[in-house]
């Protein structure tokens, strides 16, 4: 991405706001702490599971990872600054990485920086599919097939509707990288779906 493009972004990485915090008051009891955690963090439980499920691509793994991640989040609750959702999702994402590295070594492929070459490809030609014709299974399979670093930004953007700033915080990369990964993810997705649906492609070319 060019410096010009980077400076054009609406949000720059900025010091985190202090509107929410996990810091305890000195008198707080454990059960008060738990209640505050439940109120602030657990509303994002589904988001945590969704991310874990897409990153591990397996229900049982996602259950284990989410349970571990939430307990870890509780342990480090004092470290919460800013919004709870990206904070929790960052912990879930790291738990996924740790878990995959320990249990599914093949699953971590694609998380490392530069694991997939960012080759600039040509703009989509006129043969590009109309996305509204894609069915659910095609879309799901295509996303599941994306390298992890693209899959995670796509899920966080499209399914969790998070800003580039929040995604940058969760994936621990600069905002410019979020933008380029998202662009790459969408392009890979289009290519993958196109490859999976020669019939639709043929029909469109014929038009």
């Amino acid at each position, binding site marked *: 991405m060019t410096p010009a493009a980077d400076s054009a972004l609406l949000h720059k990485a900025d010091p985190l706001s202090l509107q929410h915090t996990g810091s305890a008051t000195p008198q707080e009891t454990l059960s008060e702490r738990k209640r505050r955690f*439940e109120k602030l963090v657990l509303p994002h439980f589904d988001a945590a599971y969704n991310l874990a499920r897409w990153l591990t691509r397996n229900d049982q793994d996602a259950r284990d990872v989410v349970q571990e991640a939430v307990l870890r989040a509780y342990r480090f609750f004092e470290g919460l600054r800013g919004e709870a959702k990206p904070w929790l999702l960052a912990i879930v994402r790291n738990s996924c990485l740790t878990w995959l590295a320990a249990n599914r070594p093949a699953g971590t492929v694609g998380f490392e920086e530069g694991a997939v070459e960012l080759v600039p490809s040509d703009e989509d030609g006129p043969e590009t599919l109309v996305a509204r014709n894609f069915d659910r299974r095609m879309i799901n399979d295509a996303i599941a097939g994306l390298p992890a670093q693209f899959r995670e930004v796509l899920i966080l953007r499209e399914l969790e509707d998070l800003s580039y700033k929040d995604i940058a915080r969760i994936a621990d990369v600069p905002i410019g990288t979020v933008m380029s990964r998202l662009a790459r993810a969408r392009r890979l997705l289009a290519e993958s779906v196109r490859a999976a649906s020669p019939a639709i492609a043929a029909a469109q070319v014929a038009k």
Partner: protein
Amino acid sequence: MTNDEASSLLNAYIDGELGPAKTLELEAHLAENPPLRAACGRLREMSEAVRLKADYHAAPAGLEARVRAAIPADEKDRSARPVRWAWPKPGVSLAAAVDWLRPAASLAAVALVTWVVALGYLRPSEDERITQEVLASHVRATLTSRFFDVASSDQHTVKPWLSARLAFSPPVSDLSASDFDLIGGRLDYIGAQPVAVLVYKRRQHVIDVFVWPSEIRQSEQTETRDGFNVERFSRNGMSFWIVSDLNRDELADLGRLLAERSAAP
């Protein structure tokens, strides 16, 4: 704006992440560039397709409850947070430490004594609660004239009926020779467990005999409560509580008879 720059900004544009100045500039560029405009449209469609059609995996039922339960909230679980008070620092003299320990030790002693004494007092309250429960059961049966679930004077009918519905087999004796007529049996719930109730009759007095298995050996006791007499004892791992408005002597006779019959297996 060059074409390359414009196309590199398309994703930020459709995601609403482009600043206002760049947005205007890009829109002006798109207005003059139909192929780029088409690419932008396809990008939007792809984004929409993912939002509408990709699975959102909500957490499976019960998972959140399980995780909640796993979060420690017990004050005693110190591992979850730093301990906020400190032991006497090394710099503090030994005498100061002893001063600090003395009230703590006496407090502990008082707590121990209180606990032991409380045990002695609390123990009978279990009996008290059961007394109230068997009384309530007897009064309820009298008020509603619903004395039994199985009406029979035959012990060989009553006993299997109860045994089939309970986790134990209550001893049922035929005491008609002693003028205590078995008229039936029912089930009730006393002391947090299902129990058997044998119903006897002498003259016009209905007598409830509550029976359940119990490890606690109970000495014979009789007391009068609200005009009812309550007699209790234990035999062969069974607790017997007898409730009736029959006079104490006759009730004690029944108790003795039941104890004798239950003693011999």
